[in-house]
C-alpha cells in the first residue's frame, strides 16, 4: 500500500505528525439469479406487480414450511469456489427481529456455520482482499414510506410488497483489507465481474440486486490494532461508496486529531450533502437471538457436487487478465479494461493470427468501446495492426478502417484502398510539408522562433492538404528537420 492511497498525514500538535491509515471491510448482499425464491416456488423477479409472487411460505403464514432451492445452493457454491473459499457443511439459523417487511418476524440466514469461508478476491492492481464468508440468506419484502418526503421517521405510514420476501441472497463479508475508497470501488467492481461470470447474480446496484455496506475505521499507520469502526449504509453506487469512505475516514481522523474518540455507530450516507449521518449507536444494537432453524436440515454438499461446480466455472476475470497480460507482454492492471469489456478473447485470437500486441490493446481499449465487436474477424484485425506497424496506415486511418471492419467486415487492405488510404511516400509527405511552410511564412517564422503552439497548426494544415493520409508524427519530425532543430 502506498502512502498516497490509504493514509493521510495530520499534524497533531507541536511539530508531531501522525499518518493515518483507513481500514475498510465490506459487506455485500447479492440477489441470486434463480427462477424461484430460496424456500418456496414463487417467482424471483424484479419489477413485477406488487404482491403477485407470494405464497404461504414467503408471507410467513402459520403452518407453512420452507424447502431449500437447489439452484440457489449451486449458485452460492459457484461463487464460493470462484472466490477460493472452502465450501463446507452449513446450517440455517433464525435471526429474530420485528419489522413489517419480514412477515415471519425472523429471517432465515446462516450464522456460525456458513456455506463458504476463507476466500479472497484479486483486484486488477494485483492486491488481494480476504473474504471471511459468503453465506446464504433470504431477502426481505420492500417497504415504501408514505408522507414525510419518503423518510422513515417522518412517514405517515408504510406500504409493503412481499414479492422480494424470500428471494435468495448471498452475503459476502470481506476481511478489513481495504485501504481506501478507490480500492473499495475496485473490490465491488471485481466482485460484480465474478458474480456475472459465475452467473450467480446480475449484480445491479441501481436495481438493488447488489447492496453494499462499508465498515470504516482509521488507525495510526503501522498500528496492528483496529480502530473503532462505523458501519456506513445507503451506498447506491460505487461512486457513493468511494465518496462515503473518504468522507467517513476524514471525519474520524478529524475527531481523533481533536482529541475526541470515535463512537461505534451505524451511519447513513447522504448523497446530496456528501456526508454520513448517525442512524444508531452500538448501545441500541439489536439482539437477534439466533437459534438453529428447526424446519431445515443441514446442507452438506458432497465431493461430487463440489467437483461438478468447480468444473462448471468459466475462466475468471483475474485469470483472464493474467492470460492476456502474459500474451501481450503487458502487466495485468493495464489490460483490466479490455477484460472488463470482454474483448480479451478477440485480442488473443488476433494475436494468434499474427496481430501486433500493442496496437491490439490500444484498439480494444479505445476504439472498440461500446461497439458490437464480437463479430469482428480476428484475422482482419490482426492484418490491420500489421499494416499500422508497417507504416501503411496512420492511427487516424486505422481507426476509420476498424470502424468499417466492425460495421461490415471485409479485408482491411481493400477498405484502406477504397478510402484512398494508400501509404504516402516519404517524398510526397515532404513535398506537402514544404508547400504548407511556403504558404505560411509568418507562422513558420514563429515556429522557428521556438513557438511550440504553432506545431498543431502546421500538422493540421498538412493533414488537410493530404486528406488525413499524413502521419502526424512524421509531419512533426519533418517540421523539426526543416527548422534545423
Amino acid at each position, binding site marked *: 500500500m502506498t502512502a498516497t492511497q490509504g493514509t493521510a498525514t495530520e499534524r497533531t500538535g507541536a511539530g508531531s505528525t501522525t499518518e493515518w491509515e483507513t481500514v475498510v471491510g465490506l459487506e455485500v448482499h447479492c440477489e441470486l439469479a434463480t427462477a424461484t425464491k430460496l424456500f418456496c416456488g414463487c417467482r424471483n423477479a424484479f419489477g413485477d406487480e406488487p*404482491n403477485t409472487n407470494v405464497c404461504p411460505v414467503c408471507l410467513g403464514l402459520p403452518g407453512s414450511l420452507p424447502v431449500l432451492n437447489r*439452484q440457489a445452493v449451486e449458485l452460492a457454491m459457484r461463487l464460493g469456489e470462484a472466490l477460493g473459499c472452502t465450501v463446507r457443511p452449513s446450517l440455517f439459523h433464525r435471526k429474530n427481529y420485528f*419489522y413489517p417487511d419480514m412477515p415471519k418476524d425472523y429471517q432465515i440466514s446462516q450464522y456460525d456455520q456458513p456455506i463458504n469461508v476463507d476466500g479472497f478476491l484479486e483486484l486488477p492492481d494485483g492486491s488481494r482482499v480476504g473474504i471471511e464468508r459468503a453465506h446464504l440468506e433470504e431477502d426481505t419484502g420492500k417497504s415504501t414510506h408514505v408522507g414525510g418526503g419518503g423518510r422513515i421517521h417522518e412517514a405517515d405510514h408504510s406500504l409493503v410488497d412481499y414479492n422480494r420476501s424470500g428471494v435468495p441472497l448471498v452475503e459476502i463479508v470481506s476481511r478489513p483489507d481495504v485501504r481506501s475508497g478507490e480500492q473499495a470501488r475496485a473490490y465491488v467492481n471485481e466482485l460484480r465481474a465474478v458474480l456475472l461470470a459465475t452467473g450467480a447474480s446480475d449484480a445491479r446496484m441501481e436495481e438493488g440486486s447488489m447492496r453494499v455496506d462499508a465498515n470504516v475505521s482509521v488507525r495510526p499507520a503501522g498500528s496492528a490494532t483496529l480502530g473503532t469502526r462505523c458501519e456506513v449504509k445507503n451506498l447506491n453506487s460505487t461512486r457513493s461508496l468511494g465518496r462515503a469512505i473518504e468522507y467517513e475516514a476524514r471525519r474520524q481522523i478529524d475527531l481523533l486529531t481533536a482529541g475526541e474518540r470515535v463512537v461505534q455507530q451505524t451511519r447513513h450516507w447522504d448523497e446530496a450533502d456528501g456526508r454520513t449521518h448517525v442512524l444508531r449507536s452500538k448501545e441500541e444494537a439489536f439482539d437477534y437471538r439466533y437459534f438453529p432453524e428447526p424446519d431445515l436440515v443441514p*446442507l*452438506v454438499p458432497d465431493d461430487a457436487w463440489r467437483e461438478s461446480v468447480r468444473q462448471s466455472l468459466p475462466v475468471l476475470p483475474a485469470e483472464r487478465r493474467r492470460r492476456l497480460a502474459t500474451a501481450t507482454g503487458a502487466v495485468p492492471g493495464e489490460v483490466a479494461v479490455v477484460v472488463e469489456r470482454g474483448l480479451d478473447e478477440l485480442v488473443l485470437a488476433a494475436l494468434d493470427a499474427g496481430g501486433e500486441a500493442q496496437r491490439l490493446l490500444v484498439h480494444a481499449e479505445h476504439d472498440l468501446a461500446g461497439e458490437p465487436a464480437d463479430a469482428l474477424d480476428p484475422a482482419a484485425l490482426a492484418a490491420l495492426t500489421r499494416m499500422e506497424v508497417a507504416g501503411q496506415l496512420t492511427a487516424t486511418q486505422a481507426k476509420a478502417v476498424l470502424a468499417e471492419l466492425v460495421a461490415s467486415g471485409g479485408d482491411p487492405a481493400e477498405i484502406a484502398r477504397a478510402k484512398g488510404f494508400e501509404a504516402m511516400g516519404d517524398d510526397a509527405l515532404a513535398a506537402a510539408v514544404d508547400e504548407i511552410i511556403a504558404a505560411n511564412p509568418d507562422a513558420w517564422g514563429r515556429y522557428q522562433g521556438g513557438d511550440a503552439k504553432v506545431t498543431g497548426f502546421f500538422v493540421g494544415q498538412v493533414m488537410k492538404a493530404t486528406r488525413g493520409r499524413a502521419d502526424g508524427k512524421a509531419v512533426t519530425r519533418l517540421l523539426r528537420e526543416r527548422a534545423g532543430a
Partner: protein
Amino acid sequence: MGAMGGRISRDDVAYVAGLARLELSEDELELFTGQLAAVLDHAADVEALDTEGVVPTAHPLPLVNVLRDDVVRPGLDRDEILGAAPAVEEQRFRVPPVLGELP
C-alpha cells in the same frame, strides 16, 4: 431469582420480554422469572451427562440436503391475500409508520 439458583434474573426476563415486544406487569415478571428458571433447571439436567465424544447434533432427523428443484409454482391470489389484511393501499399491505431503522 434466588430460589432457582440464579439461572435467570428478573432483569433478564424483562429484557427478553422487551425483545419479544411483550409488556409484562411486575407480577408477571415475578411469575415468569420463576417459571423460566424452572425450565432452565430442567434443561440443565443434560449437563450431568457425559457428552465426551458425542458429535453435536444440528437436527433430530437423520437427513441432510433436502432440496427442491428451481421450478416456479403458482402462489396465492393477490385479491385473496390482500383481502385478509387489515389495511391495503396501492395493492400493498398498509402498515403503521415504522419506528426506527431497519436492523
